[in-house]
């Protein structure tokens, strides 16, 4: 049932020519849904069930270079899944394949399947643009649009893709997203100022607000705190804990304390040697990975005895 709805959403956006109109329809459908979820947000926040992402034997390539080999894992709904591992082992590449950003790199290709609630996002007839509407992303470097104000940055996804939308509705979504990103109180008096004038941590929270404003199902975060100081990092980690009530979250991190603090599940990636493809060593509850990992490799890595 839900899978069929998902297919309809993919299909509708992939039809050329009627895009603006369809976008409006999707929006008017999405309107009441977000209304109810925002009400439930206050009362029983965990009521919303986000979607599950499941990777099956995913192999990723840059041209001839085999970057990631045979990854199968499940990213569970309303949980934070941390991807850890040394540099160059394909965590970020894998993360980018989840919302079809990987294929934007010239020469990049994908084998295997990635399923969003049972629907393969790589099957024919699926529009990558529609996938990215459901699976949002926050990047390593905070990247607010430099030409836009704080308000416009948050509303960007709506302005670009939702067709006509009432000013009052937009105001409400912007405020809700900024509150959700714990940024509202800091910026509510200067919404018209440029987003690039904020501090790094504020910019990253602005980017999170921008990503959540379009109501995705899944949020992917690629080392969201690596450019931030410890205070800003803590603020973002708190925020991630809040966000998982509504979203499925996958986060790439180099910081093992962060993985231990902020995630429910942890997946450890590794590569045998430089030039070989990265692979998934093991995935499990974060507590288990850090205290009683099944693989020796994992134990070496999490205890810092690696390499």
């Amino acid at each position, binding site marked *: 049932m839900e899978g069929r709805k998902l297919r309809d959403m993919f299909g509708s956006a992939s039809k050329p020519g009627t895009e603006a109109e369809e976008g409006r329809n999707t929006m008017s459908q999405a309107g009441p849904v977000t209304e109810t979820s925002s009400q439930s947000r206050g009362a029983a926040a965990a009521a919303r069930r986000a979607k599950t992402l499941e990777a099956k034997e995913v192999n990723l390539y840059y041209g001839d270079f085999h970057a990631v080999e045979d990854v199968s894992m499940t990213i569970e709904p309303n949980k934070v899944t941390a991807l850890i591992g040394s540099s160059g082992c394909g965590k970020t590449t894998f993360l980018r394949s989840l919302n079809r950003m990987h294929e934007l790199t010239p020469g990049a290709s994908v084998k295997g399947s990635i399923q969003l609630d049972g629907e393969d996002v790589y099957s024919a007839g699926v529009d990558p643009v529609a996938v990215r509407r459901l699976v949002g992303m926050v990047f390593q470097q905070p990247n607010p649009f430099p030409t836009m104000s704080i308000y416009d940055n948050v509303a960007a996804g709506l302005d*670009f893709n939702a067709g006509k939308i009432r000013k009052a509705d937009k105001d409400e979504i912007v405020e809700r997203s900024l509150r959700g990103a714990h940024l509202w109180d800091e910026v509510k008096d200067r919404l018209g100022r440029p987003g690039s004038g904020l501090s790094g941590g504020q910019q990253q929270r602005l980017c999170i607000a921008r990503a959540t404003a379009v109501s995705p199902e899944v949020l992917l975060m690629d080392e969201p705190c690596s450019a931030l100081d410890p205070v800003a990092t803590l603020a973002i980690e708190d925020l991630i804990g809040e966000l998982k009530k509504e979203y499925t979250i996958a986060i790439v991190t180099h910081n093992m304390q962060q993985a231990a603090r902020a995630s429910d599940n942890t997946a450890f990636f590794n590569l045998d040697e430089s030039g070989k493809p990265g692979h998934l060593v093991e995935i499990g509850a974060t507590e288990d990975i850090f205290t009683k990992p099944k693989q020796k490799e994992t134990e070496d890595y999490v205890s810092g005895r690696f390499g």
Partner: protein
Amino acid sequence: MTPPPADAAALSTGSTRALLAGEGSHGGTLPGWAPWAAFVGALAVCGLLETALGWFTIALMLVFGALVAILAIYAWSRPVEGARRAKDRAVTMAIVAAFGVSMAPLISLLYEVIKRGAHGISWEFFTSDSRGVVGGGGAEHAIVGTLVITACAVAISVPIGIMAAIYMNEYGRGPLRRALTFFVDVMTGIPSIVAGLFAYALFELFFGPGIRMGIMGSIALSVLMIPIVIRSAEEVLKIVPQHLREASYALGTPKWKTIVKVVLPTAFAGLVTGVMIATARIIGETAPLLVTTGVVDSLNANPFQGRMQNLAVYAYNEYRSPGVMKQASYDRAWAAALTLIAIVMILNVIARLVYRRYKTEIR
């Protein structure tokens, strides 16, 4: 509690000072006016020498003066400040001299055009054409013609040029893209008269021989302007960071919308500057307009019918075939040149204002 020997302390501070002063230094510093003194002194010496030899010219004095000044400041600094700082002073002097040499023709040209053109500037010059006048008249028709022809050329070139740049930067891949880059580079080297003949030949096919129209000139100028616009727009689009495009894609934005809503606004200031520079480059073209828009004495603001005058051809024509009052014609030619330079300057000022207003901090 015996204090260290006094001479040892002096020795150690002395050697630290020597270390801080740098290798080969004798601890001295030339006064702040030293480079000026070296330059003026060198000019004076060269001037006197040339006068004595009977070769005196200002240009020769400046060129030799600069060379002598470089040697002089080195020779002066070396014993006082040491080898490294002496070299630094010599190179600084050389760079400033090179800048001066590159500015000299520009200043000389501006000075000459203003001096000679100011005579011809009058109310009449801007408000009347030269239809049926003997000795008097103005360049209104040429000014209007220049503005109309250039505006049409910009209207043709900017959409084509920017869209081509978007294709080359955002969509083009592989051999087709490389071929396009190559041909755009070749196009920047087309002699302007060839562009004029191309436009003429094109219109002759449809309208028969002897056809002259303002729009033909615009098309000829477009041939020259499009590659410049493409090149500058491409450079500007290239520096829009990839992570902004990705941020937009991650919101579920299609590629074309990402370009329209994110890439172009981010690059806006640079695009405008590029267009202004390209406009300044073509606004003074003479040869292609001579064969496409022709020479005419009366005002014509319709680019689709009849001949059209423009400032460059006007200046050329006033000089080549002056009327009975030769000097007045020459004055008007210089005044036309001055007007053209003023238009280009105004365009540049506008470009700078736009750039300052809309430039975005790109990381």
